[in-house]
């Protein structure tokens, strides 16, 4: 009985020791991992910071205009406005009756559409 108790206590002590060291090592490993992650995050933040500046540089209106001129020729109209009122868009079905707004006469609508085309 006593031997059994001794064995049990000894076993428990070993288990406790093992568990303790196991947890300690795990925590150490996790902490190292966290440190590494934190470092990576800071690195990434630094990169994002630089990329933001780069994005702003690439996004200069001047450059976008040059790009638009070469890749979107339909908008290359001497920088003329490219927005019109939605009422002035031609209807899909030509037979559909066109209802001009109070502020617009149908003839105005036609001329504006003509200009756009």
């Amino acid at each position, binding site marked *: 009985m*006593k031997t059994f108790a001794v064995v049990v206590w000894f076993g428990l002590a070993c288990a406790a020791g093992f568990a303790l060291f196991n947890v300690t090592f795990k925590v150490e490993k996790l902490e190292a991992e966290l440190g590494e992650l934190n470092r990576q995050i800071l690195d990434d933040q630094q990169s994002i910071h630089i990329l933001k*500046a780069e994005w702003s540089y690439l996004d200069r*209106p*001047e450059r976008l205009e040059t790009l638009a001129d070469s890749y979107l020729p339909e908008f290359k109209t001497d920088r003329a*406005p490219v*927005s019109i009122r939605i009422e002035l868009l031609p209807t899909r079905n030509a037979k559909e009756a066109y209802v001009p707004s109070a502020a617009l006469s149908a003839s*105005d609508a036609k001329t504006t559409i003509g200009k756009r085309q």
Partner: protein
Amino acid sequence: MIAFAIHRTIRKSYGVPSSPEHSVPRTGGRSAPAIETGRTRILMMVGLAVFAFTSICVRLVDLAMFQVAEEPATARAAYKAGVTTQRGDIVDRNGVLLATNLTTASLYAKPNEISNGDEIANQLATVLPDLDVQSVAAKLNGDGRFMWIRRNLTPRQQWRVNRLGQPGLDFQTEEARVYPQGALGAHLLGYADIDNKGLAGIEKAYDESLRTNRDPVQVSLDIRVQHVLRDELSRAVAEFAAVGAAGIILNVKNSEVIALVSLPDFDPNHPSDAADNQRFNRATLGVYEVGSTFKIFTTAIALDTGVVDLSGGYDATQPIRISRFTIRDFHPEARWLSVPEIFMHSSNIGAAKMALDFGGETQRAYLSQLGLLDSLPIALAETGAPMIPRPWRSINTMTIGFGHGIAISALHLAAGAAATINGGLYNPPTFVMGPHNASETSPAGRRVFSEATSLKMRKLMRLVVEKGTGRKGAAPGYLVGGKTGTAETLSAGNYSSDRLLSSFVGAFPMNDPRYLVLVMLDSPKGNTKTKGFATGGWTAAPVVSRVVQRMAPFVAIVPIDEGAPEVRRELAIEITPKRLRLATY
């Protein structure tokens, strides 16, 4: 285990055999009391031991489970702090990055650790071609402890210097101020020196805030609109061979500066390369006699004080001769002119008589209310103080009536004009939005003119674009209204007709103005396209027209039908009242 060991020791000390068959102590003998005492002692010892171990256990559990706050702080997340720079960012009203700090490497050397200075200098020249090899070699061969070779290298340069493998060279991590948008907005943003100290513009005005506060400073510029204005102004400067130009776009309701351009401009990334002429801010620092655009104020004052009505007018048949001056009209009609006619034909004689009618005192009081007699209450250091006549004689009152004899900055003019058309409320211009905006004026503004006067001014300015001197400022669908201005500038003490300051103050849409566009060209030259004219109506007005058409989609203003009856009715104005014509002729 310890208890077990104690038990063994006690048994031994009392001479008790350790074999199991003798383990039961004999009682009733002579040694019985001694054994009792021994047992009591053992129990006490065990009790003490149990107490000690229990308290240790309790403390352990307590430490392990409940004492979180005393844990070492290694597990704290570092990333929440983000990138810390020596200087905060500047962004535009939509959050586009305009200025930021980037980490760079600066190259330095320790000459006292270098023996082959010439070789190193030659090697460095392959990486940095513009390096002055001789002077660097001389310094490297000296025995100083430290010398900068080049600050703020590009990553590629740093890599190539590293590849040289020279032990005497080293890098210092530094931060460089970078302006990704280049010259766009340079005059407003200003620039910082190599040690990240703000030297001009917002960089200087908000230096403290940029150094200490982590939040970016948000300026009220819209970089897209800024580009449109700069692009169109540059075109005009090239077309009319102008010396310079200034342009401002204001939000009419609260005088927020949406765009501010001064040409020629510079790249704030390399401010030292810029000439003084480029660094000079013509929009806020330069003060000019602005000419006829000033008639906006004269007419508004006359209408507001009631000395004349829209149906009233003045005789502009003869030039006015007063002391050694002659006031004449640039577009002479040589007849009686109604107030709308005076405004649309920009009659100096009419404006001078109007000014004389309400008098110098009133003029001064109104102009002061419009903020035209003092420096603007803005944070920028580049703020021009107006030049006003002292004493304010009646001749001054007359010349100021058509914009001469008083010099104000373009921003003064823009803010004042905004007050005449927005319903009569003056707001000092602002550049910064959000928590950094320390403006103390209420958003409601300061009332200068009545609503009725303001409406009349809107009608008059629309008339100028529809039928008067500013016809080229029209932008179909956007209901532009405005006023032209052409002033001769002083050179060597004389007004010269070769050096004009041509300007146009426009606003749109005139039935409910939202944006004011001011364009000023310094010494434009007429060309065949303008039939040789270099006046505001011929040079500056077309710029405003194009700017309005290009910026409107960005600020979500859709074109309307200018000919629609309700729009026409809103801005209808009678130019020559029949009643008065009969009375005059």
